[in-house]
């Protein structure tokens, strides 16, 4: 089956990101297709490239990036939710006159239309909230 994941909270604030990551890994292990993980609301913080959690705790940002690269799963971050929360890639940083970026590939900033498209295109959309 084709799945999409919607993640609505930051790592380290609630368990939502941990649950979403494990569920997505289980989907892939079972041979399902994951057409995308969409990060919305505080879920955009999963793309924070500067996150530096203690070394004895799971590193969610790195884990998502690895999953995205290894399984070619698009990691789509809502651009409107991200900008107001301080998550900018280089292009957006330049556009807003800010030095430096807080989001980098494989995370990509994109519009909400992608969420609607994913949700209607896939067989299942599974949401993880705070």
């Amino acid at each position, binding site marked *: *089956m084709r*799945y999409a994941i919607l993640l*609505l909270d930051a790592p380290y604030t*609630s*368990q*939502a990101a941990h*649950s979403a990551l*494990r*569920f997505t890994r*289980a*989907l892939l292990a*079972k041979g*399902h297709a994951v057409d995308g993980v969409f990060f919305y609301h505080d879920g955009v913080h999963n793309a924070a490239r500067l996150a530096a959690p203690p070394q004895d705790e799971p590193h969610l940002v790195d884990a998502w990036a690895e999953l995205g690269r290894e399984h070619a799963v698009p990691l789509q971050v809502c651009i409107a939710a991200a900008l107001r929360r301080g998550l900018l890639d280089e292009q957006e940083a330049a556009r807003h006159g800010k030095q430096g970026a807080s989001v980098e590939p494989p995370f990509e900033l994109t519009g909400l239309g992608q969420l609607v498209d994913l949700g209607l295109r896939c067989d*299942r*959309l*599974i*949401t*993880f*909230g*705070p």
Partner: protein
Amino acid sequence: MLLHTLNRSPLSAVLDQALAGMGPDDRLLLIEDGVIGALPAQQARFESVAGRLYALHEDLESRGLLSLCAPAVRVVDIEGFVALTEECERAVSWY
């Protein structure tokens, strides 16, 4: 038939919203803090979904709730969670 997931404890009003949204054959899976609902004292709150109530093994275990879980609750692991989403037509998340 839909799968509803709930990650809030039965002390939260979100449980009432989830129950309001459930059809007669829908299933309810407790995850994260929602597994507090697997405690025996909470089962009265779940009467309307008797036989259709599930809880995630890993979340029960990490909270020390596995041995306290009410017998009527069906315990599934993350693979079981995936299987429930396959069997059900859609999933709705309550948080």
